[in-house]
C-alpha cells in the first residue's frame, strides 16, 4: 500500500514533470518564433518545477535524476534539456525509497544535463544558420520511435507491453496497443520529414521551406499525434491494474522514457512552423563548445567519485559503474575534440551519460 506521503511525493514528481514539459514547449516556441519574452516564462516554469523536485533530494536513488533536473533548469531555458528533465522528474518520483546514495551518479546527472544543454546550443546554431528544420525534427521523431521500440524488448512491434516484476511478467495490453500506434506515428513523421528534407534540391530559403508542403504538413501532424499518443501510453502504464499495490521498478524507466518522448516530439514541431529562426549562430556554437568541455570535467569527476565509492563499498575501484562512467567520459571527450559531426557526437555523449545513470 502506498502511504499518503508516498502518494503526495509521486504527485509532486508528476506535476514537476508536467512543468518541465510545459517549459520545454514554451522555450521551443520562444526560440522558433523569435519571441525573447517567452524565455523568462519558460525559465520561471522550469525553476518552479525544479524547486518542487528538490523535495525528493533526500531519497538516495532519486538524487542523480534530481541533480539532472536542477542543472537542466538553472541556465537559459533549452527545449531538449527541459524535455529530458521531465523524464528525470518522473523517474525521481517513482524509484524505490531505499538504497545507497552515490555522489558519482549525481555528478553523472549534472554532466548529462550539461551535455543536453550543449546539444541544444548546437541545434540552435544549426537553425540560426538558416538550415532546414526538417532534419532535427525528423531525428526527434526517429529518436522517439527508437525509444518506443526499446521498451520491453521491442514488444511494441507486436502491439504488446509488459514488465518483469520479480519472477513474473505483468502484461498491460492497452498500453501495448497505444505504443504500437505511437511507433507508427513517430516513424511516419520521421520518414515524411526526412524524405522532404532530402528532396529539397538547393539550400532552403528558410527552415520551413519544403519540397512538398503536403509531406511536411503530414509529417508535422504525425509528430504531434505521436506526442499525444505517448502521453496516453504513459498514463496507461502508470495506471495499469496489473501493478497491484506496488509500482514495478522496471516500469519506472519506461515511464520516464515516454515522458521524454512527449517532450521531444512536442519541441520538434515549432521550428517547422517558423519562417526564419533568429539567433546568433556563433554565440551558440561557442557556448556549446564551452559546455562540452565542462561535461568532460564533470564526467571525469564522476569517474573519480565512482572509483572511490567502489573501493570503499566493494573493495575495488574498477566496478561496472566506474567503467560505464569512464566510457561516457571518453565519449564526451571525443565530442569536445571533434571538429566534424559535432551534433551527432554530442548526442552520443549525452546518450552514454544517460545510459550510465540508468543501468
Amino acid at each position, binding site marked *: 500500500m502506498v502511504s499518503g506521503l508516498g502518494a503526495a511525493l509521486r504527485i509532486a514528481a508528476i506535476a514537476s514533470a508536467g512543468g518541465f514539459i510545459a517549459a520545454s514547449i514554451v522555450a521551443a516556441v520562444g526560440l522558433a518564433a523569435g519571441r525573447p519574452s517567452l524565455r523568462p516564462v519558460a525559465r520561471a516554469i522550469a525553476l518552479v518545477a525544479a524547486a518542487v523536485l528538490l523535495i525528493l533530494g533526500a531519497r538516495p536513488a532519486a538524487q542523480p535524476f534530481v541533480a539532472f533536473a536542477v542543472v537542466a533548469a538553472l541556465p537559459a531555458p533549452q527545449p531538449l534539456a527541459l524535455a529530458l528533465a521531465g523524464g528525470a522528474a518522473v523517474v525521481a518520483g517513482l524509484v524505490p525509497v531505499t538504497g545507497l546514495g552515490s555522489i558519482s551518479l549525481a555528478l553523472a546527472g549534472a554532466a548529462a544535463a550539461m551535455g543536453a544543454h550543449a546539444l541544444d546550443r548546437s541545434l540552435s546554431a544549426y537553425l540560426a544558420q538558416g538550415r532546414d528544420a526538417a532534419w532535427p525534427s525528423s531525428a526527434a521523431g526517429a529518436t522517439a520511435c527508437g525509444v518506443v521500440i526499446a521498451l520491453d524488448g521491442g514488444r511494441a512491434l507486436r502491439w504488446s507491453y509488459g514488465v518483469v516484476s520479480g519472477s513474473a511478467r505483468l502484461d498491460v495490453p492497452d498500453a501495448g496497443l497505444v505504443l504500437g500506434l505511437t511507433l507508427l506515428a513517430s516513424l511516419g513523421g520521421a520518414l515524411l520529414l526526412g524524405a522532404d528534407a532530402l528532396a529539397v534540391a538547393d539550400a532552403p530559403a528558410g527552415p520551413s521551406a519544403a519540397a512538398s508542403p503536403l509531406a511536411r504538413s503530414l509529417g508535422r501532424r504525425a509528430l504531434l499525434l505521436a506526442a499525444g499518443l505517448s502521453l496516453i501510453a504513459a498514463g496507461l502504464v502508470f495506471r495499469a491494474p496489473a501493478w497491484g499495490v506496488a509500482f514495478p521498478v522496471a516500469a519506472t524507466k519506461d515511464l520516464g522514457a515516454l515522458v521524454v518522448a512527449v517532450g521531444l516530439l512536442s519541441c520538434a514541431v515549432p521550428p517547422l512552423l517558423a519562417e526564419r529562426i533568429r539567433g546568433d549562430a556563433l554565440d551558440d556554437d561557442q557556448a556549446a563548445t564551452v559546455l562540452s568541455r565542462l561535461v568532460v*570535467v564533470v564526467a571525469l569527476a564522476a569517474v*573519480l567519485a565512482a572509483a572511490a565509492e567502489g573501493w570503499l563499498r566493494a573493495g575495488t575501484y574498477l566496478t561496472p559503474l566506474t567503467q560505464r562512467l569512464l566510457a561516457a567520459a571518453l565519449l564526451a571527450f571525443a565530442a569536445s575534440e571533434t571538429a566534424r559531426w559535432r551534433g551527432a557526437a554530442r548526442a552520443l555523449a549525452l546518450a552514454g551519460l544517460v545510459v550510465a545513470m540508468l*543501468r
Partner: protein
Amino acid sequence: MRRLSTSTAVALMALALSLVTSPDLPFLERHPAVTGVVAGLTALFVFALLDRRAPRRLVGVGAATFALAVAYDGVRGEQGSITLVPGEAVRTFEDEGPGGRRLGLRPLGDAIVVEAVEPDGTIVLGQPEAQGRVRVSPGRAATVAGYRVGGPRRVGTRLVLRVSAGAQGEVALREGEKGSAGDLEITVARYFPDFALDEGQQPFSRSDAPNNPAALLDVTRGTASWRAFVIRALPGIHRPKGLDRTITLVDVAPDEAVVLSVHREPAALLAGLGLLVAAIGVAWSRW
C-alpha cells in the same frame, strides 16, 4: 605523430576506447588478442595527448598515469572470492582471472572466520590470529590482511545431484559451482527454484521459493561434454545423446554459506591521481 595528435584522430581513438571500456559491450572477453589491441590503442591515445602544448599535455599525463595504474593492477593485482561457512576458519581464497576464470587457491595471509551474520546482511569476521574483528556490509568493504573484502552475499541453496546407471555418486553444488559425482564433472550452470516455461518456451523461475526446482548442468567426462537438464519432479527426464549416465536432482538443501569478493589493487591511489590530473588538464585547457 603530428597526424595522430590532430583533433579528429584523438576523437576517434577516444571513441574506440569508450566502446572497449564499456562493460555492456564485452569486447575484451571475446578474444585474448583484443586486450593487446586495446593496450596498443591506449598507448597511441596517450602519446597523441602528450604531443600537445601545455596545459593540454596535462590531460595526457593524467591519462598515462591512469592507464599505467590499471595495467599494473591487472598484472600484479589480485581478485577472487572466498566462501565461508559459519564457524569454519579459512586461510585461502579462490583466485580469479579475466572473465571469471578460476586460477586456483591463493593464501589470504591470515585466517578468518564468520562470527555473525546480521539481519541487514553485514558479516562480522573474526581474525583469530590477529585477534581482531572486522565488519563487512553490502555498502562497506573492509581490509583484511592487506586485501579489500566486500560484497557479502548469502548462498542460499545447494542442489543435491545423483549420478546412476553405471559409475555412481552424489554431490551437493551451489549455482556456478563444479564438483565430481561418479566419473562425471558437473557444473550447475543455472538454477530455477520454481521452474516454468514462458509463452516463448523459454525457461524462467516463477518465484524464489523451491516449489519446482530444476537446473541446467554442464557435464564433462574427459574430453566429452554435454548440457543436461534436471528437474526434481521428473527424475531422469533428459538423457543427453552419448551420455550413458542418469543424473537426478534429488533435493535442494538450504545453505548458510557466505561469499565475499576479495581484491588487492596496489595502484588504486595512482589511478585516482591520474583521473584527477586529467580532469584538471581538461579544465585548464584553452576554452
